[in-house]
């Protein structure tokens, strides 16, 4: 396996870990909030599944869509910088998605609470 492939796999694993961490941090609170607001279990399930799908696609998409600009025989730290640059893309995209999702949930809560 070439060093490029190893660097790619490391970046992929790290981005999956980021996704899992965010999901673990937010899932419980988000689930409680949605259950309280929508009072329809299917809707809670839908929004939670949509959340995970969006996070996974965005994180893996950022890894796949960005290329390593490394020459053969690059030094160790150049690989580290390349991985860091990929992870920056992942974090940036995840942040944008989280912002959109938060906006959506805010609209959902505002609209449903007003009706209640």
């Amino acid at each position: 396996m070439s060093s490029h492939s190893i660097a790619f796999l490391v970046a992929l694993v790290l981005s999956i870990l980021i996704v899992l961490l965010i999901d673990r941090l937010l899932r419980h609170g988000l689930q409680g909030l949605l259950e309280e607001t929508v009072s329809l279990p299917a809707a809670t399930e839908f929004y939670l599944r949509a959340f995970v799908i969006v996070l996974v696609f965005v994180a893996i998409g950022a890894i796949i869509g960005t290329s390593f600009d490394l020459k053969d025989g690059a030094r160790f730290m150049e690989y580290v910088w390349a991985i860091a640059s990929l992870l920056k893309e992942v974090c940036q995209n995840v942040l944008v998605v989280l912002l959109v999702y938060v906006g959506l949930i805010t609209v959902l809560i505002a609209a449903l609470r007003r009706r209640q």
Partner: protein
Amino acid sequence: MSNEHYLIVSYFGVGLVSLCLGIVVYRVLRGPFAAIAEAAIGRLRSRVLTRALGAFMTLAAALGFLSVTYTEKGCVNYEQVVKKRDYLIRANQQQLHRSGDWIVSAVFLWCVVVLICLLVPRCAQANRRDRV
């Protein structure tokens, strides 16, 4: 494997993978979405919406895949395209990336549809209450 052979295999392979991604996302969301739609607009109409979700996800994935051009809108000819393996791999990565982006946009759009589905019965209830 020659580059031309790789191009043919990878093009159809990645196309299939993109479509499968769309179908997988549809299968994941179908259960809860069908229940929401049924609660909001009844069983018969909910079927139409659920099928629309499937069509939308698959089309979004296909659109992402198809939006990548190998010839860069006519700037590069076929011989130049098949000359470099790196370029072909890069194009495959772009196809998967765009498919993912389109699927994410489609999921957000359907989140809004669900929001509307949740609001419809409550509005109806509120109207009924106002009349009484």
